[in-house]
């Protein structure tokens, strides 16, 4: 009897001890937890110093400036949105688009006042100014750490971002002027058959081509639309000037003085002037892009960047061809978008690394960006089926090799501004070709001296 009782009692007692132990442990654990959770945490964040209070949770805010004023902005917005969603590095990119006309003034001011973004689209032609001015950061070291594969980039574009073997940016694309054509009007003029634009070579061929169109299309349709108030007419002249043997020069080789190939400059300038004179380019074009989109222009001289947006215009049956070779060699004005990293006096290496990561991602999604019309700077992207399968890309992608950049010169943007001014005076009849050519070299020399 006693034995039985003992046997019955023992497991019960063990259970009791266990239960009490568990309860005591829980109580202890809870009290520890309660004490711990109530402890006031000292909160110290050094990040607030950088002006980004919201970064405490390790998200890196990257500011990104762009100068896109064509239809290409929507493609970049889409890319940035994708990146913000997909990247696993806690990088948040805030994009700000600017009008191209003020972009470099604004960017320069922001850089000298230390308000610059972390990454900005900078045209390859600006490197000649920005690198000596120390406006953009040498990313050779950072890019090595991030594993940027430079050999994937188109070397022709890449070399413009490199000075003395140091990398200052990641090429994004190359873009250049092409001829957009409205198939309906060209067909009506009889210069478009079986998917081929029929144009005879040389100056006369080009003029005849335009004159034919002028005769055959209604009077309110512009044979060739060129935006007349902006830099576009400079691009047109430059394309022609550069097509000539010995053309395309503005400075002496050392860049200290102006030097133009006067005969070539004169011939090309007269050619452009005659387009205006014969109203092959009508004088009162307010917005050439809209005019073409509305079907009120047979041809449009514009960069590739508007292809993507024209594709979305309903009822517009258009084609794209490289700017025709009129003189000694094919070629048209072009430039390259690169991603550069403005200098900050107290650069946060984390932010720079994040910006480089973002830039590399962008460059590697060149085929997507190419939907806007640009030719990707990363070669495998430019050659990818997803890019080439887009309409017209096969026709003009090859012209990327004939791009005629403006000369690399620190004062080039100032010279461009001056040239645009002079050209406008010319189109509005304020001066003749000869007068302008006489003024050109002293004008450039004046800018160079400053």
């Amino acid at each position: 009897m006693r034995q039985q009782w003992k046997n019955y009692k023992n497991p019960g007692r063990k259970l009791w001890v266990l239960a009490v132990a568990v309860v005591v442990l829980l109580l202890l654990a809870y009290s520890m937890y309660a004490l711990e959770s109530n402890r006031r945490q000292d909160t110290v964040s050094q990040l607030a110093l950088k002006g980004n209070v919201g970064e405490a949770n390790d998200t890196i805010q990257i500011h990104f400036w762009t100068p896109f004023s064509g239809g290409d902005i929507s493609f970049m917005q889409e890319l940035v949105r994708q990146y913000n969603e997909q990247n696993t590095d806690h990088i948040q990119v805030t994009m700000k688009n600017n009008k191209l006309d003020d972009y470099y003034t604004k960017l320069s001011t922001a850089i000298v006042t230390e308000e610059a973004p972390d990454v900005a689209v900078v045209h390859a032609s600006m490197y000649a100014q920005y690198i000596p001015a120390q406006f953009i950061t040498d990313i050779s070291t950072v890019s090595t750490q991030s594993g940027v594969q430079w050999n994937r980039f188109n070397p022709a574009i890449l070399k413009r971002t490199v000075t003395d073997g140091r990398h200052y940016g990641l090429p994004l694309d190359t873009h250049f002027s092409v001829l957009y054509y409205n198939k309906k009007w060209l067909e009506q003029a009889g210069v478009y058959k079986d998917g081929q634009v029929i144009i005879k070579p040389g100056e006369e061929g080009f003029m005849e081509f335009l004159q034919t169109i002028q005769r055959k299309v209604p009077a309110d349709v512009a044979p060739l639309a060129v935006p007349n108030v902006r830099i576009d007419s400079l691009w047109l002249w430059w394309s022609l000037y550069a097509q000539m043997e010995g053309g395309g020069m503005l400075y002496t080789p050392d860049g200290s003085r102006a030097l133009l190939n006067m005969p070539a400059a004169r011939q090309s300038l007269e050619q452009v002037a005659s387009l205006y004179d014969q109203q092959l380019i009508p004088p009162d074009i307010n917005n050439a892009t809209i005019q073409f989109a509305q079907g009120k222009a047979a041809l449009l001289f514009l960069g590739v960047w508007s292809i993507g947006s024209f594709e979305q215009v309903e009822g517009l049956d258009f084609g794209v061809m490289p700017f025709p070779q009129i003189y000694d060699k094919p070629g048209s004005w072009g430039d390259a978008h690169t991603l550069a990293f403005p200098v900050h006096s107290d650069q946060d290496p984390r932010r720079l690394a994040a910006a480089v990561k973002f830039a590399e991602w962008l460059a590697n999604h060149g085929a997507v960006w190419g939907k806007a019309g640009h030719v990707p700077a990363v070669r495998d992207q430019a050659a990818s089926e997803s890019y080439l399968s887009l309409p017209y890309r096969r026709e003009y992608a090859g012209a990327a090799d004939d791009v005629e950049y403006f000369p690399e010169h620190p004062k080039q943007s100032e010279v461009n501004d001056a040239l645009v001014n002079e050209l406008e005076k010319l189109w509005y009849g304020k001066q003749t070709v000869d007068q302008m050519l006489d003024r050109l070299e002293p004008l450039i020399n004046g800018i160079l001296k400053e």
Partner: protein
Amino acid sequence: MKKWLERWKNMRLVNRLILMNTVLISIPLIISSWISSIGYSNSIQANVGRYQADVVREFTANTDVFMNELVLLSVTPYQSPELLNYLEQSGSHSREMDIYEQRLLLESFVRRILVNGRVDVTGVSLLSDHARSYVELPDSPGRFAEAADEERVLPVGTKLSGKGYFAAPHALLSDNGSTYEVFSIIRQIRSLENGRPLGTLVINVPEEALIQRIRNLESSQTSAFAMVDQQGNYIYRSSAFVLTDQVLTGYRGEGTLTLDNDGQPVLLTYQTSPVTGWTVLQAVPLSVLLQDASRINQQMIWLGGLCLLLSVLLSVIHSMRITRPLSRLRDSMKLVERGQFDIELPARNMDEIGHLSRAFNMMVSRLGRLTYRLYETEIREKNAQIASLQSQINPHFLYNTLGSISMYAELEDNREIVQMTGHLSALLRYSIGGEHTDVTIAQELEHVRGYLAIQQIRYGERLSYEVDAPEQWLNCPMIRLTLQPVVENAIVHGLERGRGNVHIVIRVCQEAGSVKMMVQDNGPGMEEHELAEQNDKMNKGVLPEGPGGHGLVNVHRRIVLKYGQAYGLRLHNLEEGGLQVSIIVPAALQIPDARQA
């Protein structure tokens, strides 16, 4: 440990319950109030810290809005290409513009900053690296700078950068010799073309604009502010700011922490403005912040103590309520053990205790009834025996016969027979005529004398006796037929088993409130073990087996039953030989007259 466990196990139930309840109630109560008290003060501290941080943040944001105006003003040179051109001119080209034009340009530029409609600017200086510098100091007209002006307008420690540098309030000497307390934004102007430094723009603002903002914030004791510049030097320090001799340069960014200030904990909140690089600090002693918390804590301790006391009290009462019926049950059980069956426990409740009490009551009453029935049976049996005995003896027949014998003996003139029958008749009358149980000592003595007279006739010279009974005890009540068996015992032991003569002495005396009748013989007495055996038999009331020997035991039991354990027979050997048997009964002068009532 084992000892404690043992002690715990043997502890009274009520104490065990109280102890356990107290421990079980007080430990969680104490722990929980401890935790909540700490948690409360911590959360107060956290909340205050957060609130303080908000105040500091808001202040910083407010100041930054003001300072941003200055920042915007300091970017003005970039909006004026003419000015940038002027600044870019190296000395050789400055001749392109004559002094008048230069002055006009600079004056209008400075005017634009001075008269901006938003910020009260007292001085503007444009220090050019290449062209001539221009200064406009407080209360003086603008002029081209002198050699010493740069030192005058640029405070010591200024870090030149393209981003505006905010210089803490400092003294600025005007051309009229008066001193102004101003703070400044100092921005290096760089070329937009090539990034080359072109000059420095200094905008001076009266110190009051800033100090007034901080003062507005100071309203109570808890808002003690200080502001330090980039190098950790005080820009402003309110008198209530408690931190002394602390290096404040380390606190850059944003944070809240607790510091030890001369043994007193201080809650420090700080935030560095991203615009000015100046840090606003708020430091409040924890004791001030936690005043309320400690008061509430005290109240909580009081309340907790009260609750503890109350619950302990309740647990004591409750334990007692549980255990009291148990102890009552135990006490009742003891009474039953002693033979008391007329106990009834109150059993009002229907709980376990109630059931137990009811069962106990049932058990006790049954037990009582059983015992009673047993006694009754025994008594009835005895009564029946006596009745049968009495019916067998026909006293009248016996008396008549004895009377006839006595008459014939007288006719024959045989005196012995007459005497014997007379005594026998008296003996029988006394023994059988049993209506009165209570008799007096005198009656008993009379009866014994009759008995001895008969025995003397039988034994002749061998038996002698003497009676010594004081007069005053003769009326003392006595139980019938108690003395005679004792005397008979003496005769049996002394004469029938022994040799020689027997002298019996009967003596009555008083001893401590009782009357003692001693019957002594001069026989051989009893062996000690026989004596003990006999005493034992008498105390236990065990009747010896077989015939005889009942006499003394019966007498003793009758006396004990009637008067209690203090009375009865006492046997002991006399020193001179022989046995003395004492009959002890309560002393009374006469029979209590219950019958006459």
